């Protein structure tokens, strides 16, 4: 190879081809993916994030939660995300689930659990109680998840003395081991409220009839 121009053209063609072949083709295929209108309840899915949850997404982004948490549930037969015990979702994630998100952070580290459906993991708790659980997790992770290596986020909370004022209705109920001290209360800041609203909004519960076939059907069991 002696010809600089040929070298340049080759170098250009290499990247142009991969750009067109990978990104442009993918864009053509799923760039126009739309919400799905459920014929029964005439609602569009996935439903958009609430304004507060959308602010929480920005907090999620600026704190770099994606460093340790994924937001993608792998399909049945690849990994074990759906098994009882992990249960990171009722089903694997579809591309359509993500069109409601302005920034899509599917992540690539599972130092912590997957969060794609963390909003639906409340069990028997009421949404308010679940929000309290998140606040405690963010303020003092060990108080609700002993042994975790998640860092505490005290900067998302205000700690101020109760004396001389009405106690806040939103104050965290902490055991004495994690409470800041007598006469002090811990109140979530607006950022914490937004972040928790975002986390609680994370649930892909609707199963699109158009995509359902992508999940391999579960082995037949009596009664299902």
């Amino acid at each position, binding site marked *: 190879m002696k010809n600089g121009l040929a070298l340049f053209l080759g170098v250009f063609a290499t990247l142009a081809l991969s750009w067109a072949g*990978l990104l442009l083709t993918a864009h053509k295929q799923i760039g126009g993916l739309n919400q799905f209108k459920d014929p029964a309840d005439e609602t569009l899915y996935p439903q958009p994030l609430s304004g507060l949850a959308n602010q929480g997404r920005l907090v999620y982004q600026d704190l770099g939660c994606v460093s340790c948490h994924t937001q993608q549930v792998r399909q049945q037969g690849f990994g074990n995300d759906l098994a009882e015990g992990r249960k990171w979702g009722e089903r694997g994630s579809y591309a359509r689930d993500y069109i409601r998100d302005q*920034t899509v952070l599917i992540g690539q580290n599972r130092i912590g659990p997957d969060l794609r459906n963390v909003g639906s993991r409340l069990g028997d708790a009421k949404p308010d109680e679940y929000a309290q659980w998140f606040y405690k997790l963010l303020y003092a992770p060990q108080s609700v998840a002993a*042994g*975790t290596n998640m*860092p505490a986020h005290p900067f998302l909370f205000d700690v101020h003395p109760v004396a001389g004022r009405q106690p806040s209705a939103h104050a965290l109920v902490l055991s004495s081991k994690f409470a800041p001290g007598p006469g002090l209360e811990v109140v979530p800041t607006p950022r914490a409220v937004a972040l928790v609203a975002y986390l609680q909004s994370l649930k892909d519960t609707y199963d699109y009839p158009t995509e359902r076939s992508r999940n391999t059907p579960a082995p037949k069991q009596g009664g299902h």
Partner: protein
Amino acid sequence: MNPSANNRTEQMEIDASAKWPVLVFFAYGLGWLLLGGLMQLAAAMQLHTPGFLAGCEWVTHGRLAPAAQNALVYGWGMNAAFAFGLWLMARLSATTLRHGGWLFIAAKFWNTGVALGVGGILAGYSTSFELLEMPRFVSLLLLAAYALVGVWAITTFSIRNTENVYASQWYIFGAAFWFPWLYAIAQVMLFQAPVRGVLQPVVNAWYAHGLYNLWFVPLALAAAYYFLPKILGKPVANYYLAALAFWWLAITSAFAGGSRLIGAPVPVWIPTMGIVANMLVVVGVVIVSLNLLGTLSGRFEAAKSSPTLRFILISIASFILAAIMNLALSMRGFAATVQFTLLDGLRDWLSFYACFSTAMFGAAYFLLPRLTGKEWRSTALVKLHFGATALGVLLMVAGLTYAGWTQGQMLNDATVPFTSLTKAMTFWFAFRTGTLGLLLIGHVAFLINFVWIACPINSQGTAAATLRTPPALSLEGHA
């Protein structure tokens, strides 16, 4: 004047023209290497000691870890690549590096951009896209600064005084164009006119894979193709195959990005294409190995006397290992287990640190004495640097492979509660911290030696004489 003496004078002129730009880029790079290394060490500590620096928002793990990665990639990696790439391009094109003044401006702008970007991540302006976390406004500054560097690399190439274009030049030339295109396209498609939904992770994967395999790895290969024949004093074995390897690697690596999305909610052809590409990459890696290891065969004892050669050997071994790792992670069964674990992270670490960074260390040990006309002050520190690097790479590869495999098996075993998984991994997180600390010791040793050799005041406290005759190296021969 005989031809070889002529050659020597010419090389000295080229080295003199490249001296200050190279030193400045390397100095910035080493600063970032140390700073980024410290940040990376702190972030690694947070995984096994979650209370460490937890109260401060600026250094919470989610910010510190990407900030460290950006400092290392854009601070150390890019500066070192600029220094080495410009110098080698000038040498191989047999022409002096002109308009060095512009390069100082470029260096200043680039590093201001990186500082703003890393600071921005710590301050909470992160975009959270891998390797593109820096706040948006930085990207224009970085691209402008890059243009100022890239244009001199290309200009130097186009005014070359040589008949032939050598393999190292293809790789530098290619990389010089690929990086700005990759970066600009990723910026546009993620931030200026963002694509929707899962296309964002696709763009991100394409960029991340491109940055490592079309920018950092080509520069490492440029170093290997240059230093091996230079130090061993013999031509590259099977050189006629090198051009094939270059094009083969370029085309296949460009398409391999999708392999990072195995199992992700994207159309299945995207990871499949990446898997196929990663399998094809192997052919290119085999040819490069034939070239490089063929040149080396029977001459391993030369590595004893040359730190450059020793670092390049680690780099070549890691290049092969990184390709194997990419291939292994493309196997669906294997990926299902080790995806999202420490082993997954090892792939990029192999490309960036074990392959690229070690090649730059090797290059520095060769070119800095020639540029400054001084010897390395302390051979003990050179040995310490090499020892720490070799041991660190070995520990990292062996340790994280085992740890990642264990982590993956526990992640996929639904009966293991997540807290037991964390507990089981605590040792390995600490192990990783220790290994990063070991590598950092090597970097400090390198930095001390660098300050000694680069400082204009020499050991006697007087200003160094303008270029002395470089120390005669018996093995030095052709360009």
